[in-house]
């Protein structure tokens, strides 16, 4: 176990060391200043603007125009991906001769990738052509991540604006995010992953004769180029059905470490970028501290729980203690090269961020271990969260905390010199509540109907309820990880192991939830940005509540937990809490 803690500590140290340089770099990109890549990327950037016929300097957008561009772009993204999936049989790069996708499953997958959710109702290696993986999924891995980032940048501009209307230009922000941040890191990261064993080719699957004369078919594909942006953009949709557990996606302890860093580096560094852009680094660190505290608690709980082993294993008479040469703990659904620590840390990281990638079976975590992904999702992905989405969601909570704090001390709430008034608080509340509402309605509907319970694998018991609740928590929070039994079983009449093939109810409800819970909050966030942009900045007085000290950090954590707990506690009781409090088998 000490080795496990050491790994976790090393990871955190490296992550924290990266925050400042990456944060500064991103701040320079978003304030349109020169960075070291400008000589190379600058000409490409200008050419792109020319092709898109965008004149960024001349075309500042107010919040409505910015929102319209977000929606229009996402709509085209959705249509493009849906069309690709529906017609994939006709495309090149299809050595395995896969058929085109059915309408309901393609609806779900398109919605899933355009919303940065990457929920997998499809089985990658059994149903998708390389063309769909590259031109469809990889493109949306970049695009949806970019959209998340630019929305938070627009919000920051709204917060810092000195009474104006403009939030920047969506197209300029998107192109710069891609060209200066996502693409360069992806190119280097992809090549690094290949050098460590992650595959990258466009050949057919190789049939081999094993050492003992049996046969084994090795799936192939352009994996590394997708793997890297899948993590960096907190997307999470695996090239393979078992995602980052498959050695061709994640080949060693080193790649596991690298991929975890990719997942957290942008969400964590954005807090520094934020501090820089609002002109007070302490504001950024305050938000980081709140996020980090909530994150670290989950890491500790999940690792200790997993090291303990499961109720079923103990009942079978298995001793789950560690001894020389054996990690001990719950190794069900975990691969040896990651061990208990590498899988536990991964589970915490991919559920605080909205990167639903998995390197082990979440469904096979211990009862208490499962409670961590559950609570991370219940906090609405504000603990680091997705790229951009995490910070903008957290900023809504910051405004809420300022408002509540203001009420408590009896002053007009102000944040960074801007008064928080009725209009902002209405939008903030809507933004905070729409996701939990979607989760509870959808999982209620799925639990109460025959069409919904068809998706359950574990049976009508606490684990089955957990599967359902988790599925909609994950989709509404645009996370994408799953208790993979949910529609993950092999279906008798489906071509390959293809998840929700033919379960239209799950496909459609899930798709609708993902879209609603992605774009409604974006509209509310941009609305808040627009409202704040117009306000004058009043100088901080003696009575102004500070938002950069430990007291505020504690208040913020309290508000986040309160909203999450009040919304989800009754539902969580029925699943993970029952499972972690009893040694009963079901």
């Amino acid at each position, binding site marked *: 176990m000490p080795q496990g803690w050491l*790994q976790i500590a090393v990871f955190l140290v490296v992550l924290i060391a990266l925050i400042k340089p990456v944060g500064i770099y991103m701040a320079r990109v978003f304030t349109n200043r020169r960075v070291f890549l400008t000589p190379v990327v600058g000409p490409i950037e200008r050419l792109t603007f020319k092709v898109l*016929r965008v004149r960024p300097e001349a075309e500042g957008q107010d919040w409505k125009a910015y929102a319209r561009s977000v929606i*229009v*772009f996402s709509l*085209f*993204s959705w249509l493009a991906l849906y069309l690709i999936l529906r017609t994939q049989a006709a495309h090149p790069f299809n050595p395995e001769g896969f058929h085109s996708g059915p309408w309901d499953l393609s609806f779900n997958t398109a919605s899933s990738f355009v919303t940065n959710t990457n929920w997998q109702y499809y089985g990658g290696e059994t149903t998708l052509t390389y063309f769909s993986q590259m031109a*469809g999924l990889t*493109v949306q891995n970049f695009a949806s991540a970019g959209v998340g980032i630019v929305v938070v940048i627009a919000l920051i501009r709204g917060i810092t604006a000195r009474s104006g209307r403009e939030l920047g230009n969506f*197209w300029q922000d998107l192109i710069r995010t*891609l060209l200066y941040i996502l693409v360069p890191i992806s190119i280097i990261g*992809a090549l690094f992953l*290949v050098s*460590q064993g992650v595959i*990258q080719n466009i050949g057919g699957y*190789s049939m*081999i004769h*094993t*050492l*003992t004369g049996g046969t*084994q*078919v090795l*799936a192939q594909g*352009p994996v*590394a*180029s*997708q793997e890297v942006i899948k993590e960096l953009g907190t997307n999470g949709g695996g090239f393979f059905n078992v995602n980052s*557990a498959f050695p*061709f996606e994640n*080949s060693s*302890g*080193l790649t*596991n*470490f690298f991929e975890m860093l990719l997942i957290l580096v942008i969400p964590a560094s954005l807090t520094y970028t934020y501090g820089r852009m609002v002109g007070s680094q302490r504001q950024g660190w305050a938000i980081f501290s709140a996020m980090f505290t909530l994150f670290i608690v989950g890491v500790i709980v999940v690792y200790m729980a997993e090291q303990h082993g499961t*109720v*079923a*294993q103990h009942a079978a*008479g*298995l*001793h789950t203690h560690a*001894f*020389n*040469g*054996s990690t001990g703990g719950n*190794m*069900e*659904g975990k*691969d040896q*090269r990651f061990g208990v620590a590498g899988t536990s840390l991964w589970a915490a990281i991919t559920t605080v961020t909205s990167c639903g990638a998995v390197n082990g*079976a979440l*469904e096979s975590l211990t009862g208490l*271990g499962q409670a961590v992904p559950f609570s991370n999702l219940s906090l609405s992905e504000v603990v680091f969260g997705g790229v951009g989405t995490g910070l903008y969601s957290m900023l809504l909570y910051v405004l809420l905390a300022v408002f509540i704090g203001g009420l408590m001390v009896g002053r007009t709430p102000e944040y960074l010199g801007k008064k928080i008034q009725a209009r902002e608080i209405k939008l903030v509340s809507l933004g905070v509540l729409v996701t939990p509402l979607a989760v509870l309605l959808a999982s209620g509907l799925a639990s109460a109907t025959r069409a919904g319970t068809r998706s359950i694998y*574990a049976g009508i018991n*606490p*684990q089955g309820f957990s599967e359902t609740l988790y599925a909609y928590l994950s989709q509404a929070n645009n996370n994408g990880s799953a208790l*993979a*039994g949910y529609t993950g079983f092999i279906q008798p009449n489906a071509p*390959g*192991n293809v998840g929700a093939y033919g379960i239209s109810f799950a496909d459609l409800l899930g798709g609708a939830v993902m879209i609603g819970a992605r774009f409604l909050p974006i509209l509310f966030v941009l609305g808040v940005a627009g409202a704040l942009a117009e306000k004058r900045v009043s100088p901080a007085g003696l009575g102004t509540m500070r938002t950069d000290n430990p007291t505020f950090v504690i208040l913020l954590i309290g508000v986040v937990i309160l909203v999450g707990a009040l919304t989800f506690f009754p539902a969580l009781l029925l699943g993970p809490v029952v*499972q972690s409090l009893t*040694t009963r088998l079901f």
Partner: protein
Amino acid sequence: MKKDLRTGLIAIVVMTVFLGLAYPLAITGISQVAFPGHANGSKVSIDGRIVGSKLIGQEFTEPKLGKNGKPVLDEEGEEVLVPIKSYFQPRPSATEYSADVTFFGNAAPDSVEAREEVREYMKAYLQLEKPYDKTLTSEGIPVDAVTQSASGVDPEISQANARIQAHRIAAVRKLPLSQVEDLISANTHGRFLGVLGEPGVNVLELNIALDKQAPTK
């Protein structure tokens, strides 16, 4: 609005061409030149014949033979497979080591089925190893030996698991135990820089090395 529609349409086309085709194909090209072995799946060959990937585990089983010398069939008419005693055995797998149809076993932490599954794996493990390692008890079974991996193709087992199996290998192949243990050490992947990941023994590489040192036939 009209302008947004035009820009959006051009943007998605441009991105599909550059991020969806140029980028992955360029990475493919560079990888094929710079890391051809890794990019194509780290395949392992013996005398020019590819026998697997060092990243993907495989089964070391043979059909169980009945008293009449014919393979025993299960209820579904498929051959019952049993471990080949002269090879190190990999971890249990939900997918029978399929590397082109992958899924999780999804055993719940508190289900009766999960308990039964672990029980059966433990029984089978003791049945296979106990005759050769008399000191082995259920308490000494390493957890990785009786739980399903995540990928279904876990290429590695724990060092403790390998050391227990070494007794069987040494007896069946008529090798000194120390020689088998040396082979285990030679095929163990440690933590990166002594910190990252868990040490594991690569079963395919180990079995290949075994065949080289002490061919069975």
